């Protein structure tokens, strides 16, 4: 049998050829749009492009100006406040609701639908409705005042100090349902025996949740985190629909800064510099995570 010539190893390029062909759209999108687009953006952030992209480099000028702009600073602060609070509250509320839903309750379907339906609505709609409910004249404040509490004040959208919380209320209304769903799915995946073991050990329910179940749901929390976080970075429509960044610039966010400077101020370079800062932030947070989640562990 040694007479057989050893078969040649086929060209690696043609291995899994179909798979590669089928992945072309993905590769194009990943490399062409997301990577290419990002690089393109970064490149042009070093130019003084105005209405149309032009390769006339001005070094770090755009960045200098960016970080000297109070509106940008406010945007970043707002995003940080909104982001952190939104993460905390969606996780806490989402988890609490999920934990309640997991108690073998009646009408589970009804409750779940109620919590989830806002997710089906666009930010434009969400912003509009909440803008209205929070309107001091005929929204909650107006109602409470008309009940006789003349000094009651609740006008988050018109008070620069708390406007970001007004946006948060609407954001949470829209997003916690999905978080609840994810958490519920996670809770349902916990081994029944863990609950039993905890009961036999005499551990109260809340401690079981806190010390046993939540740590076990790490993957769910990570997925949820990715979904919420990607939404937070992008937050734009909600702000535009609710306050257009106002009052003043109290509720500005980075995405809006980017958009306004690219298209309204017709200073693409400035918009691109701001985008690049956003990309950089995202990359700093995401790349280590992506590496751990997807790069580190090999096929299952």
């Amino acid at each position, binding site marked *: 049998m040694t007479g057989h010539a050893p078969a040649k190893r086929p060209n690696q390029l043609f291995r899994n050829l179909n*798979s590669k062909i089928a992945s072309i*759209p993905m590769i194009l999108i990943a490399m062409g*749009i997301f990577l290419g687009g990002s690089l393109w953006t970064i490149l042009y952030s070093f130019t003084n492009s105005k209405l149309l992209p032009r390769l006339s480099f001005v070094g770090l000028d755009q960045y200098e100006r960016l970080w000297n702009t109070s509106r940008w600073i406010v945007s970043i602060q707002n995003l940080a406040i909104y982001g952190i609070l939104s993460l905390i509250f969606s996780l806490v509320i989402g988890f609490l609701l999920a934990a309640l839903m997991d*108690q073998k309750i009646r009408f589970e379907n009804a409750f779940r639908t109620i919590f989830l339906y806002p997710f089906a609505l666009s930010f434009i709609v969400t912003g*509009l409705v909440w803008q209205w409910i929070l309107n001091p004249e005929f*929204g909650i404040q107006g109602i409470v005042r008309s009940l006789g509490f003349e000094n009651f004040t609740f006008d988050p959208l018109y008070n620069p100090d708390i406007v970001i919380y007004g946006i948060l209320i609407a954001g949470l209304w829209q997003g916690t349902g999905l978080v609840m769903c994810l958490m519920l799915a996670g809770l349902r995946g916990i081994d029944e025996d863990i609950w039993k073991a905890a009961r036999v050990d005499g551990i109260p329910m809340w401690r079981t949740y806190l010390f046993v179940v939540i740590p076990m749901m790490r993957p769910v929390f990570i997925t949820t985190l990715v979904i919420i976080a990607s939404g937070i970075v992008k937050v734009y*429509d909600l702000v535009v629909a609710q306050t257009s960044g106002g009052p003043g610039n109290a509720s500005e966010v980075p995405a809006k800064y980017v958009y306004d400077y690219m298209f309204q101020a017709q200073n693409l370079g400035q918009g691109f510099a701001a985008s690049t800062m956003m990309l950089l932030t995202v990359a700093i947070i995401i790349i280590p995570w992506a590496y751990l989640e997807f790069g580190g562990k090999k096929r299952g």
Partner: protein
Amino acid sequence: MANISTLNTTGAGFDTVAADVSGPRGRRPKRVLSRRNIILYGVLSVAALYYLLPLYVMVVTSLKGMPEIRMGNIFSPPMEITFEPWVKAWAEACTGLNCDGLSRGFWNSVQILVPSVVVSIFVASVSGYSLANWRFKGSELFFSILIIGAFIPYQVMIYPVVIALRELGVYGTLTGLVIVHTIFGMPILTLLFRNYFASLPVELFKAARIDGAGFWQIYLRIMLPMSLPIFVVAMILQVTGIWNDFLFGVVFTRPDTYPMTVQLNNIVNSVQGVKEYNVNMAATLLTGAVPLIVYFVSGRLFVRGIAAGAVKG
């Protein structure tokens, strides 16, 4: 000999506990209004109220006339129900010179929605399938880039996408819009599909390969029929996402093919003196109807699909 077990069991210890036979027996009695239930349903109901409030306001307002809105408060039920705002929102509201309300946008939206959903889900599912079952060198790298792409604000990407579509010569066409939706739906959908397919037993895939099925045959005949839950999730995400999209709809279409959200924005933002809140709310509800219906119909599958696809990593 018939009942050896019963004979055996009533042995030694019977008398020690005989006195106790009258003690607790069977199910522990439970009060419906136990403290636990009051807290549980109380919290859930309060939360439900918070979630329902805006919907209630929308519905109630859309059924009121303008005078009533101006005087009354937003939470009071309509004294006189009128469907005029709905009619107006659907068929009469004006933007600029066009006074046919949302009706035109509805069909445009449908025409955009169907191919976009189908194409984006197809592309993402095939990519997810490739990533899960047919890895090749670099595939994970592309995937990581995609995931990072999920964090990029759409606004940032508009310019490069405009240029790319212009170079492809599909700017302003339905094809172009479908491509845009596919691009921006890609990251999350691919993640979902990849995780889902990876959670299916590898043996199935191996068995099919031994049976001689190729890439497409395995996808179509083995994987697809098993993936209903995740397709439902993807469908819901895309239907809501695409239907609610405003930015791409307006940037990548023309007036005669504007989707419903653009019309909605026009109605809501074209203020003729006073805002016609009732018409706005009716328009809002009409626009949200399609994704809402999709939710109500397939919400249960959504949770199942999430459990199957999103939560595993």
